[in-house]
């Protein structure tokens, strides 16, 4: 898998479209086990990201994703702002100076992103958070190489699997056992991130 700067820009723009499209569902999921604003916050944050990167021209994918990250950090707030912001900030470090990402380079970015989410959010696999999607996606990339379509499928499966889990971090954790039976909203927004990747990669390839 190879991702050009143009495709990486499309990825950011597609994430925005997905967040707008699924804004209400994200908020409904959050309503069930949190405070109901995840859709609003993600839609607001990625709209700003799209505004920032759409008309800019980047040769350096690292610089582009540094802008994505700083926009999220400065515009979103809540828990999702620092978590997604830190994820893309760490990835941008790994992608610094590159105008093309091969499978290995892309995976390095995702690996750094996961490290960032872990450090910032202090959550672990199985806590019913976005990491329940990001960690399996990373593990699969490390083992088999980056494959956008596989990543999207894994993300979908793992987001679905959060339904049966009991939340251990974030606001949902206050519900204890009552958090069971609902998909984690951060896991679903993460699923959308990898679905967006699969879509833009497929369109580029065809």
């Amino acid at each position, binding site marked *: 898998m190879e991702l050009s700067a143009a495709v990486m820009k499309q990825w950011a723009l597609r994430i925005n479209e997905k967040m707008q499209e699924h804004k209400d569902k994200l908020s409904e999921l959050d*309503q069930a086990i949190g*405070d*109901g*604003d995840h859709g609003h916050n993600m839609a607001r944050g990625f709209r700003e990201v799209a505004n920032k990167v759409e008309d800019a021209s980047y040769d350096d994918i690292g610089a582009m994703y540094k802008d994505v990250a700083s926009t999220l950090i400065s*515009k979103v707030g*809540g828990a999702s702002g620092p978590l997604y912001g830190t994820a893309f900030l760490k990835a941008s470090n790994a992608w610094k100076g590159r105008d093309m990402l091969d499978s290995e380079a892309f995976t390095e970015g995702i690996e750094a992103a996961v490290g960032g989410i872990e450090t910032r959010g202090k959550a672990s696999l199985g806590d019913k958070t976005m990491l329940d999607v990001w960690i399996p996606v990373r593990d699969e990339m490390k083992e088999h190489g980056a494959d956008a379509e596989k990543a999207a499928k894994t993300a979908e499966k793992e987001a679905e699997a959060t339904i049966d889990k009991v939340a251990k971090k974030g606001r949902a954790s206050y519900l204890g056992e009552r958090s069971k039976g609902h998909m984690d909203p951060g896991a679903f927004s993460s699923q959308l991130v990898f679905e967006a990747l699969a879509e833009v990669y497929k369109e580029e390839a065809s």
Partner: protein
Amino acid sequence: MKKLINGVDQIVSEMVEGLVAAHPDKLRLIENTNVIVRADAPVQGKVALISGGGSGHEPAHAGYVGEGLLDAAVSGEVFTSPTPDQVLEAIKAVDSGSGVLLIVKNYSGDVMNFDMAADLAEAEDITVKQVVIRDDVAISNPDDRRGVAGTTLVHMIAGAAAAEGKSLDEVEAIAQGVADNVRSMGVSLSPCTVPASGKPGFTLDENEMEIGTGIHGEQGVERRELMQADAVTEELVQHVLDDMHLNDGTDVALMINGQGATPLMELYIVARKAIQLLKDRGIHVKKTFVGEYMTSLEMTGCSVTILNLDEERKRLLLSGRE
């Protein structure tokens, strides 16, 4: 959803504009932010106190900006922590060189954003300390407890300490002392609606109440049939006391906090019972607060907060502002 607003996206900016417009002699808005600072900030030679968090908890935190209390408050979107750059703007605006203490409620978003802001401030050579408040005993694991109404007692006591000219380390220790000795627990009778979602955070039947609700309308820990005020008060006070291990004759401060849409009348009914219960246990209530200190939009219900007062906390609280 029925709210007196002009639009979901302007709520916070219009609220802070209104606050500053109403109190121009006391408050100032940092341009292009939702940061409210004391009109005379930075105050030379004084440790600066900053708190903040999502909006919707008014008067927390912007209502606590003033002499003897906070130097700045950072308002995020409704129930959403403010961003690190806004917190950094607040830090830069109030630091006089004596250092800055951040008073943070233990919610993952708040903790992360304030942490990032502290890192950014340190990179600019400003000394920043943080105190994280975890007073909500509805959560059993002390590390996971949320910061709720007890946070405002930190504002008052640490604010009084800073006004006396104490150093950053001293103010931090006093604030931490309050944080370690304050406990709260709430009950809700009806939910609140976050404007951005337009729907209530949870639903309760006519005869139900939710015990242990957080200040964001997040569901509590247990749903029960509605009880009378005395029985509810007894339950809340007992929960709080079970966690405090107070000796006979201990001095405390008591706060009966309305969640946004509870008549003061009902809060006094709760206060009456709470004071009586504490008296029966030989605990001396030295100061009682009844009113709205940390609200949750239009949620109905209240929380009970008890703070164990040592001599210093007692002196600072009784001499300080509220």
